[in-house]
């Protein structure tokens, strides 16, 4: 597997930001989520985050919660997530897992790192683990050469931003607003300064997430960040076309195209 940073490097070479797309595994079904994620790859995502559905997702807004809960109700298991990773990573796009901590602890951190690596996963985004409480994960990731994507927030102190930048690999996930996931009308004033603070802490790429749902917003964010992370807006494409897979995939494709154009028109 390759670190996600290669995708950011490519984008940088192209003079643009990378587009990182998120969907939870198992929604609407395991196979359906694979087809959806592959559609996003085909339509222009530079990297993929695959959510591991969890019963107590404190950082997720209602859209992602709804899809993840449906996936759980549909019986998705941790092992299924690896299957989705494998199927997406096959496309060659860097593929990360985004997950709360307990399922990983339960799976066994070492075993998880090994299996994730074996499935071709690039690494992991950990919304409820910070580097200072992530020792076990950091060790396992390092051993298996996996990306460790930690989050920074507008409320993070400079010291913590620097520490997080230092401990992250692949990229740093900058939460653009104080709040949970979910599409928002306008991107936040807090994001730009936050990105700058991360850059001051090291040269790991910084992707900004939380709230982006249109190409214009993506363009705005792409003006100052190395990557634009979009989650809820993709999920909404599927939720809005529940029961009609083709329509859902069309919507995903259209949105990805729009966003991919957005990250490209930013700097022009």
């Amino acid at each position, binding site marked *: 597997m390759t670190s996600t940073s290669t995708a950011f490097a490519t984008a940088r070479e192209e003079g643009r930001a990378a587009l990182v797309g998120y969907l939870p595994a198992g929604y609407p079904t395991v196979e359906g989520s694979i087809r959806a994620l592959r559609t996003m790859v085909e339509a222009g995502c530079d990297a993929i985050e695959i959510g591991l559905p*969890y*019963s*107590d*997702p*404190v*950082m997720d*807004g*209602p859209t992602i*919660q709804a899809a993840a*809960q449906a996936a*759980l109700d549909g019986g998705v*298991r*941790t092992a299924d997530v690896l299957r989705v990773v494998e199927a997406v990573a096959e496309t060659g796009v860097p593929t990360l897992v985004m997950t709360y*901590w*307990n*399922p*990983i*602890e*339960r*799976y066994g951190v070492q075993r998880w790192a090994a299996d994730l690596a074996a499935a071709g996963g690039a690494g992991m985004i950990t*919304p*409820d*683990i*910070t580097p*200072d*409480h992530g020792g076990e994960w950091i060790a396992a990731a390092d051993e298996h050469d996996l990306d460790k994507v*930690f*989050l*920074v*927030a*507008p*409320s*993070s*102190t400079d010291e*913590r931003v620097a520490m*997080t930048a230092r401990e992250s690999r692949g990229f740093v996930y900058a*939460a653009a*607003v*104080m*709040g*949970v996931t979910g599409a928002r009308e306008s991107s936040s004033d807090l994001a730009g300064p936050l990105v700058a603070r991360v850059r001051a802490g090291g040269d790991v790429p910084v992707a900004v997430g939380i709230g982006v749902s249109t190409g214009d917003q993506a363009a705005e964010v792409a003006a100052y960040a190395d990557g634009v992370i979009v989650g809820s807006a993709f999920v909404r494409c599927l939720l809005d076309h529940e029961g009609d897979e083709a329509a859902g995939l069309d919507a995903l494709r259209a949105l990805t195209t729009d966003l991919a154009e957005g990250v490209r028109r930013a700097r022009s």
Partner: protein
Amino acid sequence: MSVSVPSGPMRYEADERGYFGETWGGRFMPEALVAALDELTEAWREAMADDAFVADFERVLRDYAGTPSRLYHAERLSELVGARVLLKREDLNHTGAHKIRNVLGQALLTRRMGKTRVIAETGAGQHGVASATAAAWFDLDCTVYMGAVDTRRQALNVARMQLLGAKVVPVESGSATLKDAINEALRDWVASVDHTAYLFGTAAGPHPFPSMVRDFCRGIGDEARAQCLEQYGVLPDAVAACVGGGSNAIGLFTAFLEDEGVEIHGFEPGGDGVETGRHAATIHAGEAGVLHGARTYVLQDEDGQTVESHSISAGLDYPGVGPQHSWLSAAGRATYTPVTDAQAMEAMALLSRTEGIIPAIESAHAVAGALDVAKRLGQERGPDATVLINLSGRGDKDMGTAIEWFGLGDAEEGPEADLEQVEADAATGPDTEAQQ
């Protein structure tokens, strides 16, 4: 798990980063909240070292909440079991439970930190009512998150909170109960953390909550220990409390941790019986994991998904538990034993009929379990053997459940259950202990 766990007085304390015994607790939280948690940790540490804060806290507890709560010798109960049974009367506190201590401490700290709004989660509503009360007293804005299933079941407590000036937000996500209310409160907090304090309802959650809530509740045990010594000239042979998240239990236990001769008993909600899977006996039957920011025992499935808990008592119906309890159990300092719904309800009836005290069903778990301990100790050490039970709250809120369980409330018909039998049964030998 590690050789560097301190021994002596610090043995049962959390380290700087919030770990008990190096493993339990910690802070598994979004980065967005870390600054707030750090700020809170700092403010709490400073406050506890500030005589003026401590004096303020003691004053509001005394003048407003009514502490110190009485230590009461339950004479008829003592006679039934053959040992001295003492009840710490937290049920007589303002709002009817130990929970007022915690919220007054946290609200006082909120004011000290200059924040103007508090949020809280609540299950059946007890912590929500306590939080709304403290917010009214300190003139703070208050929003309470409550599972939508619970807001419908507990309209009375919703009304109480509203009357006290709080906004109650029904949470529809997940199982729409307590754990989802916690999730939603955390989501609010992520977005509002600059002016908002999260009044967490029990000694669980990320550091510093387990230690901070314990500090605010430890008056229970400090008072009880001094009262027992003063009134009876001895330490108790055993202390007992029910364990939901664990605030009342840790509040009691803390004073006795260094008293090696004192048995420490936590009673967990055994629901229909641990063997049925329908229970909330987290320590007894859960596995180590991370929930709501702390590593602790958790009821979870093979994939680490939280499993729904079951208890007749809403206040104990939580699939996690405060991490210090996990450590006290792992370290062998305290014993955690499940008490079934049926045993708790029987104890509720027994205490009502013998002492004229209707306990909260939560507290009835402690009574049920402790009476068996008392019978054993009475047999081993004679009638002066002393068991001190934390009567964490009153049962007014639980009459609906009692009505269903015992078939009460119809004056024409009379109770369905044979409550006369309860006293007779109580006089016989230990049973919850024997069942384990």
